[in-house]
């Protein structure tokens, strides 16, 4: 078997899409000053929510909406604890991941063995299955949605008043409060958006990649999405580049596991596949070190990230 460029490319797109979606959502959440480590949990809630809706309604579009709602619910639960009850964001985020994993497994029990119609390309078969053109038309609508969201999120943050207020809340919550902005409401909205995006990312696993239910099917990609946000320096454009770069690395892992290097690059076969799996994290650390060592503060992290907001008047 030769090296199939088109199939490899399409695999990379498939690997990149969920982390791009979850990363965009988490970036908005973090820009508002909230660190939600529960991305993995929200993805799993979205995966089971979307899958259940797919099984029950046979409507993939509705399934994706339900996935978004399920993810957003997870996010709002996180919000109730961290924003309204002022619990620790790190601990609560980890708890959300554990909760999402457990709840999705529990709900998934009744769906074991069932299959939904894969939410594939909506283009005519002639395009979607065309040997060459499928590289453009052969994807699930979720892939195009993720790509459209990149400029939308960038535009929202840069050019809209709502985006400016969101950044202001993440930068200096007290000042935003004293100017009369509702810090808590802004953060709830950002968390809900982040949860919805993570939910859609989860649905990509249960509706597109493998249209059946399996426990923990997101396989830790939520953590990669978290690393991706830091890697991208909280910028949407870099998030897109980073998502596809990480996608390539994840593909290399699969490629190495399948012994793909055997024909193409035998030397690379001595590198264990775990090395490729670790690469996104290693690269994030390296990029962070480079960013923080640069003099002119390329560090774009929101100043209030992870800090609770306690208005004292």
């Amino acid at each position: 078997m030769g090296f199939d460029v088109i199939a490899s490319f399409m695999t990379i797109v498939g690997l990149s899409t969920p982390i791009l979606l979850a990363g965009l959502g988490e970036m908005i959440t973090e820009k508002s000053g909230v660190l939600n480590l529960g991305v993995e949990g929200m993805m799993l809630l979205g995966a089971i929510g979307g899958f259940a809706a797919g099984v029950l309604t046979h409507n993939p579009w509705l399934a994706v909406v339900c996935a978004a709602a399920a993810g957003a619910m997870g996010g709002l639960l996180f919000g109730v604890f961290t924003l309204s009850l002022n619990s620790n964001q790190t601990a609560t985020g980890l708890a959300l991941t554990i909760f999402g994993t457990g709840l999705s497994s529990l709900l998934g029990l009744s769906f074991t063995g069932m299959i939904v119609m894969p939410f594939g390309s909506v283009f005519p078969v002639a395009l979607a299955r065309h040997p060459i053109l499928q590289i453009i038309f052969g994807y699930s609508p979720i892939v195009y949605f993720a790509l459209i969201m990149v400029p939308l999120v960038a535009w929202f943050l840069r050019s809209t008043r709502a985006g400016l207020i969101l950044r202001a809340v993440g930068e200096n919550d007290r000042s935003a409060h004293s100017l009369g902005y509702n810090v808590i409401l802004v953060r709830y909205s950002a968390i809900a958006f982040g949860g919805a995006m993570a939910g859609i990312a989860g649905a990509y696993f249960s509706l597109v990649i493998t249209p059946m239910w399996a426990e923990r099917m997101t396989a830790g990609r939520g953590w990669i999405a978290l690393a991706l946000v830091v890697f991208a320096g909280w910028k949407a454009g870099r998030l897109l580049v980073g998502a596809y770069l990480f996608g390539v690395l994840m593909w290399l892992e699969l490629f190495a596991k399948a012994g793909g290097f055997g024909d193409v690059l035998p030397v690379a076969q001595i590198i264990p596949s775990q090395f490729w799996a670790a690469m996104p994290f290693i690269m994030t650390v390296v990029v962070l070190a480079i960013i923080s060592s640069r003099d002119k503060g390329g560090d774009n992290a929101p100043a209030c990230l992870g800090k609770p907001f306690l208005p004292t008047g």
Partner: protein
Amino acid sequence: MSKDNAMPNPPPRLELKGITKHFPGVLANDHVSMAVQPGEIHALLGENGAGKSTLVKMIYGIMQPDAGEIRWNGKPVVVPNPKAARRLGIGMVFQHFSLFEALTVMENIALGMDARIPAREPDARIRAVMTQYGLLLDPGRIVSTLSVGERQRIEIVRALLLNPELLIMDEPTSVLTPQEVDQLFVVLRQLASEGRSILYISHKLHEIKALCDTATILRGGKLVDRCDPRVESSRSMAEKMIGGNLKDIQRGKLGNFGAEKLVVKGLSVPAEGPFGVALKDISFSVRAGEIFGIAGVAGNGQNALLLALSGEATAKSHQAISVDGAPVGHMRARARRGQGMASVPEERNGHAAVPVFSLADNAVLTARDRLGMVRSGLIDHRAARTYAGEVIEAFSVKATGPGALAESLSGGNLQKYIMGREILQKPQVLVVSQPTWGVDAGAAAAIHQALVDLAADGSAIVVISQDLDELLALCDTLAVINEGRLSRPMKVSEARIEEIGLLMGGIHGETTHAA
């Protein structure tokens, strides 16, 4: 400077009637009634905790009064939030700027406006306001790269764009050079001449005398007096504020200094971080009994200098700093304390004291060696509590006792405690930064007196402060730090304020005293 309006007997711009606000355990405002006229610059005076901030927060809608009425241009109003206040025509410039460091000047201004994000058209309006009042700023600059004076300009522009009829200014001059203060006053007088009212909160009484038409004085949440600051003296107003006689700093004979205690010779420290300031070739000496002041606008190397003197940053050369002739440049803070050198940094919470530690535990942190609070690795809690109790007693710190958490104290009380903690250790050399920052007049006087007494006992003292009045009142010798360089020292008795102002603004020159 009040103007007669066309209308006969116009109602006051703002009138407060019986405003009352309770906090748990405190009555922050007790039936306060006052009025601000159109075109009036009205001073609101009072010590820390007198209720000034609470009062203006209620006017600006950040808090709601428990009782009482706010009348705006004669009509009773409720101000539920700052947005509503701005809609009425009330603008506010905060003491601690409510700016967003990572955003641009323009974005910061836009956030303070309750309209759509400015595109081209309001951009022109912003520029018009800036030129009209001589408040020049580059709209595209990131705020973190601006000086304190420039940041304040953003706040003022932000407030002026809303065309306010009342502008509240909370301690606006505490961070400015004398020249910047003059520029600000020109702007404020121009605003008043246009019929706008200004409510001016400050504790700098000579500024209030120079600027304001009326003064309202609060003490303990109650309105205690109303006066015309132009006919009062600074002293009489200060006494009304504290409700008693103001103690002068009692000092002995001047100029009788002993041997050199602290010698700094060619101290250079590279800048730390992207916004740090490098210290360049700093040399000065302080003799026994001398109080040496270092003036300067914030961000000119004061922090780096304090860290270098305290030992948190060590010098390359052993000889760069010496105490009583012994080189200490290479020593870290603890070793320098062993040599008789103590220091108090500017930031009380988290630098000078650990907020969640008790006062006794905070005493252990700096006094453990000199006062033997640690024996074979174990803390002698009784010694720590006794010492903390002594400090509380000697400096009349308002606290529940040595077990009180540092964070439970008000700023002024914590500052008194921290100063007392060092002073009662009788250090040979004491370096303090901003010793009375955010501290009320009574506490400031106590701290100043303690420093003078320590000097009289033969210690050498370095006071780093942005408050020029404080330095002029307290110090024997004064130098100015600007961009990490220290000017030549001058005797305070011979120093001219214009020259100091020019040095603070960065105009160096040994020849300026010709003029």
